[in-house]
């Protein structure tokens, strides 16, 4: 612990840096004096953080090496769950992993790129229209989930009173109403559209703020040096100048993508989804954990999910970190 700065002689000085005490009790008192209040301010958050984030993650890792059915105490079985996941779980390999990757690749980077391009366009509008557009684009993400299910169910309703069916039948594109949310071939695209629609969240706002913060002189200097293309501007000035916001946006996009996994079950109304068409890794965890009570196995899937998020955020850090 070093004193960063020395003050001119003042009354407050003596209280701010009291003379060190000796002995073990004195050392503890010194510590309380110096660092006690720092931990005091942290304590409630730290406690909740440990209880609701750290312990559950550690417990998931621990349980993933056990057989646990929620009735008998967990029994240690080593790597069996992981081996079963890779070698025996056909559903996981055939549908869940493929779906998750397809969904994550489109919604993650796709939604992220879309958020950046929209933020970039908005930044070039005057304040009032910018604020209005930002509000419109952000609004779907503020209520993602419950309230929106009402909308999607009506829009994609399987009978002729569904808006999409009625619209397409009116155009003559289709003759019979399509069961959008129950058809394996349509469920995934609808999930992707719905998630993209609500993906202009906090990361989008951060990137918008980041673009607006960049000093105009950087652009002027580049223009002097002969940079004329907008694309060059984006890649050589805009993005490098706001790397921290880009990284924040990337992490938010990533978490949002994996967190959105329940959408398939919400839309189709069943877990597993019709022919596993919309089955994502999150649904697989729920399927094994809450429907089959194979909690050890579900925990192993959770660990795989957390590792995937960690891996992708490493990639993002590589791209945008220092």
């Amino acid at each position, binding site marked *: *612990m070093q004193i960063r700065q020395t003050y001119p002689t003042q*009354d*407050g*000085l003596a209280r701010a840096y009291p003379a060190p005490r000796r002995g073990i009790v004195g050392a503890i008192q010194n510590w309380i004096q110096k660092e006690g209040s*720092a931990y005091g*301010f*942290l304590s409630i958050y730290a406690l*909740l*953080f440990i*209880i*609701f*984030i750290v*312990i559950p993650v550690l*417990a*998931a890792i621990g349980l993933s090496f056990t057989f646990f059915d929620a009735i008998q105490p967990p029994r240690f079985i080593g790597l069996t769950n992981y081996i079963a996941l890779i070698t025996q779980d056909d559903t996981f390999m055939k549908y869940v992993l493929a779906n998750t990757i397809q969904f994550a690749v489109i919604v993650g980077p796709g939604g992220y790129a879309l958020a950046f391009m929209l933020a970039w*366009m*908005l*930044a*070039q*509008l*005057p304040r009032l229209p910018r*604020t209005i557009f930002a*509000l*419109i*684009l952000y*609004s*779907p993400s*503020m*209520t993602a989930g*419950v*309230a*929106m*299910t*009402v*909308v999607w*169910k*009506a*829009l994609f309703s399987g009978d002729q*009173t569904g808006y999409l069916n009625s619209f397409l039948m009116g155009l003559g594109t289709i003759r019979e109403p399509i069961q959008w949310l129950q058809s394996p071939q349509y469920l995934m695209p609808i999930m992707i559209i719905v998630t993209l*629609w609500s993906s202009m969240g*906090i990361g989008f*706002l951060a990137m918008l*703020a*980041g673009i607006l*913060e960049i000093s*105009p002189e950087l*652009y002027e200097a580049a223009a002097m040096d002969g940079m004329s293309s907008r694309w060059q501007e984006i890649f050589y000035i805009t993005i490098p100048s706001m790397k*921290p916001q880009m990284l*924040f946006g990337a*992490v*938010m996009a*990533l*978490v949002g993508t994996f967190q959105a996994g329940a959408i398939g079950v919400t839309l189709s*109304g069943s877990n597993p989804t019709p022919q596993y068409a919309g089955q994502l890794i999150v649904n697989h*965890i729920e399927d094994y954990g*809450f429907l089959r009570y194979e909690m050890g196995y579900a*925990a192993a899937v*959770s660990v795989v*999910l*957390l590792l995937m998020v960690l891996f992708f955020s490493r990639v993002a850090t590589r791209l945008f970190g220092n």
Partner: protein
Amino acid sequence: MMSSRMNMNWYHRYTGVRNRGINPQGFHVSQIKFYILLVPLAAVMLLPIIFIFSSAFKPPDELFAYPPRFLVVNPTFKNFTDLFSKLSTSGIPVSRYLFNSILITLVTVGASIIVSSAAAYSLSKKRFKLKQALFAINNVALMFVPVAVTIPRFLVIERLNLLDSFWVHILPVLAMPVGLFLLKQFIDGVPDEVLEAAQIDGATDLEIYWRIVLPMIRPALATIAILTFQAAWNNADISTLYINTESLRTLAFYLSTLTKTTATGATAVAGQGIAAAAALIMFLPNLIIFIFLQGQVMSTMSHSGLK
């Protein structure tokens, strides 16, 4: 140079360099291409939201009209009166769910502001050995996906005897790494000199935190309030997973039961109207709060960089 620009005619004003590029003051022809792209996109993004408003006020014959009409023709408050005169299948009036949601959300938002800002103050302005390490841990936790650990979380909550209690709605939401992160970044912008001056004047730590730091970080507090509001108000999962007593559940939960039953025949006719009304009640507070606080949110977001 500036004054000559001010005097230019409108043609030069809208085609000159001044309103071109990032953060312009006014309109410029170069902005037209963005409007051409953004207006249709915004319209599409807005459709589901217009739909929520429109169907909440639709009378039954319009809700089930064929061909379906997007906009309401004869608006009525019938869906809302139906919603509040209705008992849920287990005999709880809907107003009870609404009351629970309001109370839970208010307590969560208030507690979250205090808990996160106190921790952020410590991580930003205090000097202690583990500071960097703890902030790094919180940054890793930004990537935390709560749905992944639903089961172990359930076991922890069960052990703590929090199942089926009021507090289980609140406590898990308070540990919000994004909130702490944004607050800490914002407090970093408060000059150390201000706090040191107060310390020399004899202010205690608590006074510095309460009287100086909190008032200076209002935009960040507004942002945390919005994020916590959304997390608490829209939360149906906690009621589903950790609550068995119907009278402790929230409006978001009740709405999720409505959308489930509308998939099947008879209840659908009555259900769809009140579901639309409930959806509007769920959505509207999010929108209103964000409209009021959006300026503050944007100024917080410019501190959001993750290094």
